[in-house]
């Protein structure tokens, strides 16, 4: 044999490293090739016609909306509607605004889910998977935008939320609301494209739009982006949404878990051993 044990192990090690590291490098590379899809909603263009609401309800087997957007009426998404359009009277007149899942880059709901039923797909949409969900509703506790809704009156309840028409996207289509919007207020594309498009619109019409692209930095960045004529706080949005992502908030705790798990038992064992001598002196009963 022209190869001894030592060099054989070396070869084996190098081969092993190449296989594992090479694979992981390749896979991260591949994942970077896919950009998150997102949607850009231009509130200035939106006329509040509810076409998106109706199309969404039809596409997902939900009842048709019965009420209309009206100033002073705050309509909310619930277990029967995944998207709502509301109307607000602002410093720039009446403005319509849509509300649905924001498809966060780092969603709190997916971080909260203990069964990975809430899932950030590599294409961008945040989806809910029926066969995994146990109905604990921790996603609802965690979502800063109050998006996941639960069917309280069903023995086989589902979570309802916008999934950016994930199945349709996977077949090469675009979300039904973006397809149907008569005012061209909803644009589907990669998040990067949409942000540059939004910047362009702000640049071209500085008097029309507020300069903030809502969703660019909120909650660590979201897949759904808003262009609005007024600051978002005039449009019924929670102004206290933080810029960093929400899973960041429980990261510190989660990181401390392995530390405690490794350090606490030996400390306890040490204390036990140190105090044990008393016990033999006292002749105490140990069980």
């Amino acid at each position, binding site marked *: 044999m022209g190869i001894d044990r030592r060099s054989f192990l070396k070869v084996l090690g190098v081969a092993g490293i190449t296989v594992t590291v090479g694979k992981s490098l390749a896979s991260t590379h591949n994942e970077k090739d896919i950009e998150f899809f997102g949607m850009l909603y231009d509130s200035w263009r939106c006329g509040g016609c509810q076409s998106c609401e109706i199309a969404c309800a039809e596409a997902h087997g939900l009842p048709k909306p019965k009420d209309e957007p009206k100033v002073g009426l705050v309509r909310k998404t619930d277990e029967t509607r995944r998207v709502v359009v509301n109307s607000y009277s602002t410093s720039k007149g009446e403005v319509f605004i849509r509300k649905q899942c924001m498809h966060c880059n780092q969603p709190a709901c997916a971080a909260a889910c*203990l069964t990975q039923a809430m899932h950030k797909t590599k294409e961008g949409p945040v989806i809910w998977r029926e066969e*995994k969900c146990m109905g*604990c509703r921790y996603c609802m506790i*965690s979502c800063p935008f109050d998006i996941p809704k*639960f069917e*309280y*009156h069903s023995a086989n309840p589902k979570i309802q939320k916008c999934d950016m028409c994930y199945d349709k996207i996977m077949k090469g289509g675009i979300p039904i609301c973006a397809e149907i919007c008569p005012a061209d207020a909803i644009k589907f594309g990669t998040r990067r494209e949409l942000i540059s498009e939004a910047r362009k619109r702000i640049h071209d019409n500085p008097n029309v739009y507020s300069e903030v692209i809502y969703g660019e930095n909120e909650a660590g960045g979201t897949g759904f982006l808003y262009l609005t004529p007024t600051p978002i706080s005039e449009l019924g949005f*929670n102004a206290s949404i933080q810029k960093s992502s929400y899973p960041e908030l429980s990261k510190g705790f*989660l990181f401390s878990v392995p530390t405690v798990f490794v350090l606490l038992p030996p400390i306890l064992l040490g204390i036990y051993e140190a105090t044990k001598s008393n016990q033999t002196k006292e002749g105490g009963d140990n069980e």
Partner: protein
Amino acid sequence: MNEVIAHNVRDNDGKSIWKFLLSELKPKGKMLTPFNVISIPIMILGLVLIVIRFWKGLGSITNLTQDVPWGLWIGFDVVTGVAFAGGAYVLTFMVYILNMHKYHSIVRVTVLNGFLAYLFYAGALLLDLGRPWNVVNPIIGNNFGTSSVLFLVAWHFLLYMIAQLIEFSPAVAEWLGARRARKILSGMTIATVIFGITLSTLHQSGLGALYLMAKDKIHPLWYSDFIPILFFISSIFAGLSMVIFEGSITQKVFSWQISEKNEHAHDEILHGLSKVCAVAMFAYFFLQVIVFIHGKRWEYMGTPMGNWYLIEVVGFVLLPMLLFFASYRNRNLRLIKIAAIITIIGVIMNRLDVTVIGFRWNAETRYIPTWMEFVVTLAVMFTEIWIFRWVINRMPVLRDSPAWVIDGK
């Protein structure tokens, strides 16, 4: 009662194990006690409500809303119940790790209480799950949501229940007269105690960490980065106050089971536990003050929520803490018991303030539990007490171990 004791001297050479178990399953003692008269109808009603809940959905008997998806069953049964079960890990730490033999006589009953509390209150979680048939998903299969605090809590509940069962198992072995099994199981105690304390540290704080992502939803007086640490420290005195409270009741109700020696020792135990409570509460109060100052919380003072916060922290933390400290000096047992009850109320307030009262305090429609949610909660508690009584009446929990254990040393 003599009959009960007669059963207890069962040994391997007695009747067959199945006959013995069958005879033990029968109820003992009077059936028409006030406790039974109150608890049986509530348990039956609770069962009916649970059937309706699984048939018609959660909304049929609860008032949960889209804004407040976790109500009384999570906020009280699970989050508060588990805090009160914390006595088990604190006492096993004192007795097995620190070797404080003084507290040995109450370890078994505390571990039993802890185990049943987890079994029933964490079990109440199943009632709250919308899709309970998927409850095994985070345990088996490839559905590990490892980034979730709830994933950690779920696993810890499961593992800690097993640990507590092992800690308690020598009592079961003594009841069954299984000498060899008892020896093996007792040998596992230290390892399981260490494991159990570690698990408790993490999931007591983990219950608080569940709410870390709900930053914008919890009233700022109850939200801080320190929720996990506050939950952990308060579980120490919550658990011990419950031990003091339950101990005073079991000492009376099951007094015929307790040897004279242990009965006298109980007063000393209460004094010792009250000291631990006092110090833990001091640490907790101190941390609350730091959080108050750092969180610039004085701006909320004078609002209704601010007043409620002051009542909780001053009336139900500072006051019982001072009572515990006072009981040290004048050795007053009644003072300890009063302080324990105030502390228990304070812990209930705190847990509910985070989970229900302060959660979406500004929502248009506030969540107020239905009477049916209360009935189910009571039914769960009563069932637990029934099982507790069944075990106490059969196994050597409060009374001394059978002679063969002591002789066999």
